[in-house]
């Protein structure tokens, strides 16, 4: 008779162990989940900072256009020739050089550029590591089919840490004939 009772020994302990393993599993999931949430703190902060850096690039690009419009129109004229297919090799070379020089001021990685000085100030203010630049700076002319006005199309980007944000604006401009 005693031998028949043996299989019931320690059932309660075994059940408790099963519960404990389940609870510890839950705890593990929670701990890992909490860790990933801690990472999203930094991500959110970096996203906002990247957006601010992109805004800085956008402001700089618009301002340069406002103070030096005729210098940009020279680039635009060459670009129009290129799009029409009437630009010769010299004009294409000139376009590349002018455009590179025009865009260089907006890239925070270019030492000595206005963007680099702004980046240094932003980094100092916030203790972060920002970078920004302008990817596209073009004039959407009303001469092109489908447009009734002239627009400046600027696509700026900003980055903080590993997060990068892109900001695109279409600004109406008036070109005097």
């Amino acid at each position, binding site marked *: 008779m005693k031998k028949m009772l043996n299989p019931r020994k320690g059932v309660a302990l075994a059940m408790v162990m099963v519960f404990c393993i389940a609870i510890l599993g839950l705890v593990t999931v929670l701990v890992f989940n909490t860790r990933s949430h801690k990472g999203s703190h930094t991500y959110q902060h970096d996203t*906002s900072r990247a957006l601010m850096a992109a805004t800085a690039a956008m402001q700089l690009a618009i301002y340069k256009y406002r103070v030096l419009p005729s210098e940009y129109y020279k680039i635009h004229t060459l670009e129009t020739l290129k799009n029409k297919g009437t630009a010769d090799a010299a004009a294409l070379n000139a376009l590349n050089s002018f455009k590179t020089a025009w865009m260089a001021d907006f890239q925070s990685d270019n030492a000595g550029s206005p963007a680099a000085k702004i980046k240094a100030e932003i980094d100092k*203010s916030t203790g972060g590591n920002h970078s920004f630049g302008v990817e596209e700076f073009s004039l959407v002319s009303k001469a092109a089919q489908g447009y009734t006005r002239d627009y400046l199309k600027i696509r700026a980007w900003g980055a903080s840490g590993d997060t990068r944000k892109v900001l695109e604006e279409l600004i109406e401009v008036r070109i005097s004939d």
Partner: protein
Amino acid sequence: MPLSAREKISPPYCPSRRAGLSLVEILLALLILTIAVLPAIGAFSGYYGVATRQMEQEMALKLGEAVVNVLMTANYSELKEGAIPALPLNIQTPSGSFSGTMSFAGGYASGTPVTIGKTKYIIGAEVKKIFLAQNIGTPHNNALEFSWISPDAPPPPFGGGAAPPPPPIATYSCFNDLICLKVTVDFGGAKPIELATFRADMAR
């Protein structure tokens, strides 16, 4: 053979002394459960803390961005000189619409504290000139200087022969003070939110 009273009541395969759990078993089970549940409680409380902090930080970031947007649209001339007496702040929060002011004292500003739930958000701002307007009379190196390649053809080399020099890089010194905006939102977290951007004078 007649059965005794005890044998009649209890079946032979399940004696009454094994019908329940022993005190030692229950105590052991409780001990093990306690050991397992304690870290679970700790993890839940940690998770709750992280979630709360994340919510607070998100709110602080939204407030910071909203204040930057307000500063980006404020009157530029007054802003750069710190001459704005009070800038209205109208911000939509989960607790409803918040109306306050940013009070300036020189290049620094402090906003009306925003309370959302149990958290108090203290907003601060700083306006700093990072580029100074160029002065023709007394030129300086702190002006914003743009560069571009002059499309004007360089003069031909004297006497001919040598290749013409590359197109010259022209520069232009700007005649505006240009500013950097910094917004700080302190919400009692370990580190306040700090956002900074650049604003140019678009008046011209």
